[in-house]
């Protein structure tokens, strides 16, 4: 498929968070008022707020898990986090003007799920969570430096490749999820063999490269003077990628530890 055709088919980006009209101002946007425009500092601060909110709710579930000595006490909270987080993500994507409310709600709900999942992994493989957290934020810092200095330059081909790979991974996970209902699964996704670890490494790399698209998205929004609420939206998109990257690193480390 030629690049141009593919881009027309999937839009400028297949990721619904990065729709081509993402920076389009709504009727209430006043172009002359610079205080109502998106800034880099604003997006960074709001990402920090979302991370703190996620950490607070994750910490609560984590404590509940280890105080009760099992996942039984936090299953409800985890399900609430997973389903509520998904709902909030959908609302944020389709009603980005509401990002100021829905993005923090997403972070809080996602924290509930992350806290429970992390506690389960920690119980099985002590010390794995701090490793995954360290590697996630380490990747964030290194890739931001690489992006800001121009070492990694996202182009249309780069975006097409990342979007296609992300879509492929999502499809594979969906098929595996559906097959699970029939007592079957795609074995290599979860295996701790060389192929399974290779697959996890590939997914981690794609998740990490999605961060570069997030950085470019935020940079472009600030340059173009997008509406202020896009700071929350940019922070939300970064948060979604970070959560995914963290989970994939956690899975990769678990596979390595289980060998």
């Amino acid at each position, binding site marked *: 498929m030629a690049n141009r055709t593919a881009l027309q088919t999937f839009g400028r980006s297949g990721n619904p968070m990065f729709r081509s009209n993402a920076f389009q101002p709504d009727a209430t946007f006043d172009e002359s008022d610079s205080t109502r425009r998106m800034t880099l500092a604003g997006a960074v601060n709001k990402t920090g707020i979302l*991370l703190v909110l996620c950490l607070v709710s994750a910490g609560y579930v984590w404590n509940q898990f280890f105080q009760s000595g099992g996942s039984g006490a936090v299953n409800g909270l985890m399900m609430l986090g997973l389903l509520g987080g998904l709902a909030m993500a959908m609302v944020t994507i389709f009603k980005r003007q509401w990002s100021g409310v829905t993005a923090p709600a997403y972070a809080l709900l996602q924290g509930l799920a992350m806290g429970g999942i992390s506690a389960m992994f920690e119980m099985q493989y002590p010390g794995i969570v701090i490793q995954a957290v360290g590697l996630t934020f380490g990747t964030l810092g290194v890739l931001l430096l690489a992006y800001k200095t121009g070492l990694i330059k996202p182009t249309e081909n780069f975006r097409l490749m990342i979007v296609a790979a992300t879509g492929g991974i999502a499809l594979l996970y969906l098929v595996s999820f559906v097959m699970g209902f029939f007592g079957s699964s795609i074995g290599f996704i979860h295996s701790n063999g060389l192929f399974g670890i290779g697959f996890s490494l590939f997914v981690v790399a794609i998740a990490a490269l999605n961060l570069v698209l997030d950085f470019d998205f935020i940079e472009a929004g600030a340059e173009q003077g997008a509406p202020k609420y896009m700071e929350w939206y940019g922070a939300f998109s970064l948060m979604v990628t970070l959560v995914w990257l963290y989970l994939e690193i956690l899975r990769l480390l678990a596979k390595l530890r289980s060998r």
Partner: protein
Amino acid sequence: MGLNELIFGGLAVLGIAVFVYVGQFRASRSQRERSDRLRWNTVDKAQSAKKKS
């Protein structure tokens, strides 16, 4: 605190510090001023449509 927490905790703190500090600066000129840059914008289109009307 074990070595594991020290190393990976330190990495996490360093990563966040880099994000908070570097994130506030604009990207380098070589990143911003190139012909094959990604186009996210429709603000310009919206503005030009406004001007036309």
